[in-house]
């Protein structure tokens, strides 16, 4: 099994799909000659040419909206929004248009559009380049939302997202791009809507997304020294959510921590907690713990930024609380 980075895995999926399928093209700000501000699309212009690897003006509404129209006309565009903070500029097109054309038409048309974006704190970009806004999108019927955390998952799920007949918001994370992991020789599509058990355990289930998957795995190791056996699950797709996999794990461990980098309050974790208290109420032995960012924008000064975002230690502390240690 070759080892590649998360960044290479995204590029690998884009290249493979574009080689296979003329209807797939990519567009976004600075993705061509520069290869994207995160270097994800490097080399694709040289291989596929400027018709299929399109630099756009700084026009988030038009980038997403043009993707919608091309998708309605039968293509499978992949558009890139440089930072998920800038998704806010295109929300009208995502929420009112992409998510609703199929519905408002009574099922006459599909919108097979993939919107790639990335974000994440930990490098002091300040308050407008690091937010985690996935909770905004999972709230919208008609959208699918993916947030893979490993090279294998990001590659297999991007493939599936491009071939999904619905609009998919595909979240990548800034700090995960250099993370390495083993991937199969050939791309194996990973279906959307399936969680992955990252580590098996018996005492506490940690349900984590994005970088918190890795931080939770670290926390699980630390908890092992306390004699606590921790299971870590990555839902991978936030919408649709693999509720069965989460419930099954909780029935085994009876204790839950939900962890994400986004602000805790009203976050994705709140929905997970609600699902579990309803579907696994009789199995819960402790209140569900939530770990996420404190309720503040992200400050520039590293010491303040680090104070706001959650770390492995925060997950570890939450694990201990659930077992009363």
């Amino acid at each position, binding site marked *: 099994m070759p080892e590649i980075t998360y960044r290479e895995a995204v590029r690998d999926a884009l290249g493979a799909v574009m080689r296979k399928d003329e209807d797939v*093209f990519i567009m976004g700000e600075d993705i061509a000659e520069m290869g994207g501000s995160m270097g994800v699309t490097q080399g694709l212009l040289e291989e596929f040419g400027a*018709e*299929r690897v*399109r630099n*756009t*003006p700084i*026009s988030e*509404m*038009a980038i*997403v*909206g*043009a*993707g*919608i*129209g*091309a*998708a*309605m*006309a*039968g*293509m499978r*565009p992949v558009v890139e929004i440089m930072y998920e903070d800038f998704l806010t500029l295109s929300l*009208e*097109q995502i929420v*009112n*248009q992409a998510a609703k*054309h*199929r*519905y*408002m*038409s*009574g*099922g*006459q*048309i*599909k919108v*097979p559009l993939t919107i790639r974006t990335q974000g994440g704190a930990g490098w002091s970009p300040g308050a407008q380049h690091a937010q985690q806004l996935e909770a905004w999108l999972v709230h919208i*019927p*008609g959208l*699918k939302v993916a947030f893979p955390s490993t090279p294998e998952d990001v590659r297999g799920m991007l493939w599936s997202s491009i071939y999904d*007949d*619905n609009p998919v918001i595909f979240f990548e994370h800034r700090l995960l791009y250099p993370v390495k992991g083993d991937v199969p020789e050939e791309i194996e599509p990973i279906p959307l809507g399936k969680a992955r058990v990252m580590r098996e355990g018996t005492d506490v289930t940690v349900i984590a997304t994005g970088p918190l998957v890795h931080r939770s795995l670290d926390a699980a190791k630390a908890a092992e020294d306390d004699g606590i056996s921790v299971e870590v699950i990555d839902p991978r797709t936030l919408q649709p959510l693999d509720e069965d996999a989460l419930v099954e794990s909780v029935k085994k461990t009876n204790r839950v921590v939900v962890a994400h980098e986004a602000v805790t309050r009203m976050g994705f974790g709140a929905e997970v907690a609600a699902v579990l208290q309803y579907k696994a109420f009789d199995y819960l032995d402790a209140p569900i713990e939530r770990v996420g960012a404190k309720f503040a924008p992200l400050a520039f000064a590293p010491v303040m930024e680090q104070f706001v975002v959650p770390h492995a230690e925060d997950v570890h502390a939450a694990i201990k609380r659930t077992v009363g240690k």
Partner: protein
Amino acid sequence: MAKVEKKRALNEERLRDFLREMLLIRRFEERVEERFRAGELPGFLHVAIGQEAVAVGVCQAMEEGDIFASTHRAHGHTLARGSHPNNVMAELYGKLEGISHGYGGSMHLYDIERGNYGANAVIGGGLPAVTGAGLAFKLRDEPRVAVAFFGDGATNIGTFHESLNLAQLWKTKTVFVCENNHWAESTPGWQHSPVWDDMSKRALAYDMRAIKVDGQDVEAVYEAAHEALEHARGGDGPVFLDVETYRMHGHYIGDPQVYRTKEDRENAANHDPIERLRDKLGLADDDFQSFDREATEIVDGALEFAKNGTDPQPEDALKNVYA
């Protein structure tokens, strides 16, 4: 400014067909107004009475395979592109037989088979998608064009500017049809745009070809639209069709139009595109009345069809969320 060449002179028979189409739209919308006021129709509705020549002129110039996106004032475009009045009326009654099967309503009329990619209730909301569809036609080298209808009010929203810029930059197969009726809901053009009396200046700012046309003259609209469509179809880039027209009624059905002077309303009424074409054709009263009866009968039939349509089941609301 491009001069419209008279290379596709329309014969009298074709113009008579246009008149019948415009009459059908007029009678359809009048009936919709009446039924709405009678409390039969849910939601709220916008009619385009006075703007029929734009819908018919542009839609008749479109070819099979062309697509369009419309606005909240979409009945005319939809009927002019060939959707059956029965299904359009059934949609307004929220029936399964409606062209959006009851999921859309007046502001979200879709008919994909006839290239109707959706009426949009967000001002300017459909413009980026029309740009993208025009891009897809170009990338696939298809002889198709994507047409966007929108009003003068939409020329101040970001999607308009981003779309015009992108379309011209990439030479997408797109035609932007600005139906300038000089009203953005209740706000007159002079209060919302510095170029309200010449919207083609907006296109020139993006180096886009613009054609100005009298929107009450269906023949002129047809010719201008044909030229714009062929320009875009041939890959020569998008065209901005600056159509001057008149909204003879209020923004929505029941709008008391307190913001509008009596003179302005009378002026609009004096620019009726149906009267104009009737005069141009020198149509005898008998002929006109026969066309009118025909339109009224079709609308009667549509109403009957709609009222006898099938109500969706409540739980149908959960279908069609995902493909």
